[in-house]
């Protein structure tokens, strides 16, 4: 029985549209890498160079030779690492509480983490600036990391909670009947099953902290305390007219870690935000 609906769009047209979508999505990423591999003279030639035919790594040398980039890179790595570890540990503990217990303030907590996700960072810069200023945390890595931890916790708790929900508590109970302690059952049974969830949320925290712009712009203003995005923004303003190829090399250095980590966990990124709506 073949009652397939009649085709309205011919296959060739469909594939053509698909190719257009592919090109439009890929081109800016390709163009960034391509420009970063070309010498400044080729970038400023009459005809665009569609591929790195005058291949050079000098732009990366120039970017990495900039003391500002190295400082910013180290600051970003430090802030991101602190955020990642702390957010994972705190979100892990909180997600256990939300998922495995029923207590009176649980509903209020869940509403709070949903509402916090919708409060724009842009609206918080003024008061976060003042609060950190009062505690002498401006221009410090730990101060910025504290803000980032608070910023990513709502989403990381929400996502991890979904993973913990997916692991039946009966597994732990069975291990306890077999003689495990409660903590032992948790560590040996639930924790290993949670590994994919921890990786997914960890990557989210990494990307957030690595890309964050607004708070870093306000909190980290001294030249030696800039993070990578803030440094890059300033670098573009200074060099754009003269040297797009070095700008593209610096952009590639910033973008590559994010793209790699994102691709690892991509299939889990969307589910957290819309999971409630997918089930018809």
């Amino acid at each position, binding site marked *: 029985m073949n009652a397939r609906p009649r085709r309205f769009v011919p296959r060739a047209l469909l594939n053509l*549209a698909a190719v257009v979508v592919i090109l439009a999505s890929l081109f800016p990423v390709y163009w960034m890498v391509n420009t970063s591999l070309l010498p400044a003279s080729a970038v400023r030639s009459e005809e665009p160079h569609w591929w790195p035919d005058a291949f050079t790594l000098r732009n990366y040398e120039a970017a990495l030779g900039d003391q500002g980039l190295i400082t910013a890179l180290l600051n970003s790595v430090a802030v991101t690492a602190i955020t990642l570890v702390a957010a994972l540990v705190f979100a892990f503990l909180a997600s256990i509480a939300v998922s495995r217990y*029923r207590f009176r303030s649980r509903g209020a907590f869940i509403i709070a983490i949903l509402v916090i996700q919708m409060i724009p960072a842009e609206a918080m810069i003024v008061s976060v600036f003042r609060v950190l200023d009062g505690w002498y945390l401006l221009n410090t890595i730990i101060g910025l990391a*504290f803000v980032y931890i608070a910023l990513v916790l709502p989403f990381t708790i929400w996502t991890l909670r979904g993973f913990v929900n997916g692991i039946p508590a009966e597994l732990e109970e069975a291990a306890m009947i077999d003689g495990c302690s409660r903590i032992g059952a948790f560590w040996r049974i639930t924790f290993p099953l949670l590994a994919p969830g921890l990786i997914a949320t960890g990557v989210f925290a990494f990307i957030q902290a690595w890309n964050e712009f607004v708070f870093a712009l306000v909190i980290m203003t001294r030249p030696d305390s800039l993070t990578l995005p803030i440094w890059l923004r300033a670098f573009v303003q200074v060099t754009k*007219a003269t040297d797009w190829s070095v700008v593209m090399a610096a952009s590639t250095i910033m973008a590559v870690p994010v793209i790699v980590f994102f691709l690892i966990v991509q299939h889990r990124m969307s589910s957290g935000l819309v999971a409630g709506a997918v089930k018809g």
Partner: protein
Amino acid sequence: MTVLSPPAAAPQSAAQPHDEQPRRPRRFPWGPLALLTPAVIMMAVFIGWPLIQLVIMSFQEFGRAQIFGAPPEFIGLGNYISVLTDPAFWAVLGRSVGLCLVSVAATMVLGILIAVMMTKLGAVMRTAVSIALLLAWAMPALTATIVWGWIFDTEYGLVNWVLTQVTGESWIGHSWLSDPLSFYAVAAIIITWGAIPFVVFSTYAGLTQVPGEVMEAAALDGAGGFARFRLIVMPYIRSILLVLLVLQVIWDLRVFAQIYALQSIGGVRADTNTIGVYIYSVSMASGDLGAGGAISVILVIILLAISAYWIRTMLKQEES
């Protein structure tokens, strides 16, 4: 160890007389609260406390003098009145809403079309489209903005070169960012380009839930393509589209990095601000934290009102 008390079924099992841990009647839930403490402290100190400060500050005269130690003075609704009577604020709000509406409309329409297209493609093509969209999605907003800024560059940008080739006139030297309208057009392209993948993947996930048998049955009963989409597919993906719409509106209304970075590539700051960048320039650059606070509170209220639907949907999922 008392840190972990009974799991999920606690209230019911505590009520039963033969509980496995009968010496624990209903009592204060120390276990979960201990687990929540670190997260709650971080969010309370670095989001809750600043939020309270923000509201207080928005009712205070808080300018440069106060930054350097003068005690702030309460001026009631003074900041709100001066912000709401300032034509610059309304101009910025209008531009933000305009940019947001155009970007959201383009994102949703193209996103849904691409998602529908993906359901009709062969396996190889579909995988290729997915990978391309994933790469665009993974690209940090800041680097995407810089690359698009380079593509639209005045002197050596690709767009000007292509236009020169196509039209035969020289477009070299045409500045896309100095005119506010074309600045916003470029910004809308950047925002839409970055937002489409999320809409496509979410919509596609919803479309795959539509049972094929129902579609076949409808086709046999004589429903045309459009009728099938409207009567069968739409009810399946309606709630997901609404959630996506709400999220897109919120994300596009508060857009910051793209606008701020694009302004440093070119463009007149005063004419191209959106609400987020405006808050930054009023409070950080001009030093009027009171007015900045008032605008921030207004933005929070607008966004929370829009996101109420999203929060309700997520809570419903939590209950089920």
